[in-house]
């Protein structure tokens, strides 16, 4: 778990903030510090796999932590979020943070996941990029709907922070802004 993440709110500036969320890879996660998020340290809030949430959210301990705002979910690249729209809609009141995973930086499926969360579900809370998140994909991620980035451990966060101002114009709409138009 990285100490810091890049946080870049929709109408604000990008900055480094402390990371409060631990990503849990599920029960099959070898070497995990806990077998279930209800055993995790109270210090950490936990992002659980979405498919795990589907089968375990009736567990009272889990729900108790979720009600305290300590549980979020992360979407794998093969989670079809539109198929589970009702669960996600219910999650809007529960999850302070959701995340979408990049198994490798050049897998763009989570870009569409973030876009759908913002467009279709009108997701207002944080959407975090996790996994193989690298400097040169930050801007694309920020434009499709991510506002937080837990970067791969070897990435230079300071260089990461410089990526969001590279372009002052755009030629298609995105979550952050409409396409640039010339003054009439």
């Amino acid at each position: 778990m990285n100490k810091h993440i890049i946080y870049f709110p929709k109408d604000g500036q990008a900055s480094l903030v402390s990371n409060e969320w631990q990503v849990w890879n599920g029960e099959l996660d070898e070497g995990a510090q806990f077998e279930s998020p209800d055993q995790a340290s109270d210090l950490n809030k936990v992002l659980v796999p979405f498919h795990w949430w589907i089968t375990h959210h009736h567990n009272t301990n889990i729900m108790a932590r979720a009600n305290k705002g300590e549980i979020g979910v992360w979407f794998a690249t093969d989670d079809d979020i539109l198929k589970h729209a009702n669960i996600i809609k219910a999650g809007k009141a529960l999850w302070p943070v959701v995340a979408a995973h990049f198994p490798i930086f050049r897998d763009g499926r989570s870009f569409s996941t973030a876009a759908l969360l913002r467009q279709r579900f009108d997701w207002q809370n944080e959407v975090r990029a996790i996994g193989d998140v690298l400097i040169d994909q930050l801007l694309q991620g920020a434009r499709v709907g991510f506002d937080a980035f837990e970067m791969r451990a070897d990435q230079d966060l300071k260089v990461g922070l410089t990526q969001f101002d590279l372009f002052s114009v755009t030629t298609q709409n995105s979550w952050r802004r409409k396409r640039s138009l010339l003054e009439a």
Partner: protein
Amino acid sequence: MYKYDAIDQTLVDQRVAQFRDQVARRLDGSLAEEEFRPLRLQNGLYHQRHAYMLRIAIPYGLLSAKQLRTLALISDQYDRGYGHFTTRQNIQFNWIELAQTPDILAELAKVEMHAIQTSGNCIRNITSDAFAGVAGDEYVDSRPVCELLRQWSTLHPEFAHLPRKFKFAINGAKEDRTVLLCHDVGIELKKNTWGELIADLYAGGGMGRTPILGSLIKQDLPWQVLPSYLTALLRVYNRFGRRDNLYKARIKILVKALGPQEFARQVEGEWTHLQNGDDNFTKGEWERVAKHFTKPAYQQLSSLTNEQVIADAPEAEQTTFARWLERNVRPHQVPGYASVILSLKPHGTVAPGDATTAQMKAIADLSDQYSFGELRVTHEQNLVLADVEQSKLFELWRAAKKQNVALANIGLLTDIIACPGGDFCSLANAKSLPIAKAIQERFDNLDYLFDLGDISLNISGCINSCGHHHVGNIGVLGVDKDGEEWYQITLGGEQGVDAAIGKVIGPSFYADEIPDVITSVINTYVGHRLDDESFIDAYRRLGVGPFKEAAYKNSKKRKKVDDQSESALS
């Protein structure tokens, strides 16, 4: 042609700065090659057999004289004195230094050019009809839609890492000069009975290992909603296209697996949420772009007959000039004008589609002198001067001859489409260029070629099919067998409205057999031809039988071939 506004210019300038920083991080080692690779590819930079290759976009094939002079400058200062025009309206330079690429891109940005998305798993350079705006058979000038979609797709964040490359072609004419059905998405523009601009969309076409013609998935779509519809289509592909197998990652595999109807249904389902959104084009945007594609300042001229044009030439030159008029000159929408194709396929000298620095400069001058300073690049790797006064055709022909770009072989057997092949490309299994050269040398008799008429011969050095062999009447594909270069022949491919994928005739041949094999195929055609029947018509009437028999009759080496790898490829 389109002129960048402040937004376009800022975007390409900032893209150069971004890439300059990425290259610097690569060179100082803070960016690993594996992670730099997709970044450089999305700026057209490949690592090839000898050096880096830079592929520069010529969006929908339009080029100004000024831009061509910049390409000549790049060829001269940063490369080895020539460039290669490709089948998808790009130009490639083969001898590039990585450290110099930001400077090259900065030179390009000065003349409103770039290499953005000419490679990589993203939306590639959008191609169109090289004769858009001047063709006699045009329903709609495709260029404003091409430019609007160029802008929409440029640095599109959601579709920056698709499962695989994604190619658009757009056509607005009766004849198809874009190989529309071999594209991931083909957009056919037309007007409805109320005169409104609408589009039919074909998806899932492609060449490569699994050649498939695209399927019609949407009809009569108003032009304004193309961005929202294409967002829906690309989103379905981005989410569900295969990423586990490089060879099954193109959209054609998804469309085939789901079936075109189901694919269309899923796109439609996504689109219902997007179609009324603000992604769609506005009238203001149309006007901003379309005003650049108004007609140039044509003179009021009367049409000349062919006889009148030929009469400009001295008697001794009339036969060859007439032949050039027939093969290399196309009718124009405006009386007194014609479009001229400059052949980049001289026999037996350089690679098909290559132009030297000197030729680029001279052709830029010709375009200034004869065609309003504009050029077009064709899918067949030739250049077009689209707006030439008929009364100046003879003068232009003489000037073009001096540059060795006036061979009257357009559409003939030696107007070969070829990829750079194993001489340059690290993907290739076999060389393409020596095969093209050998065929051109074998058929170096223009009278004979002229009698044969329209025949397309396309050569790819590997199954990636950059030389479009699948849609050549005669296709030649380089294959590797135990480290040796072999060539597979396909017959019956065709581009245009009757597009078809060629069929493999049988086991492969050695390189040195190819000219004989092609000769046998051609002789069979000549032997069976009825009147003026074209090669493809004769092939369709006769079937593969007689051609196959002739091709293998004299082949001594074919028995050595391992047939197993053959069937794996077909």
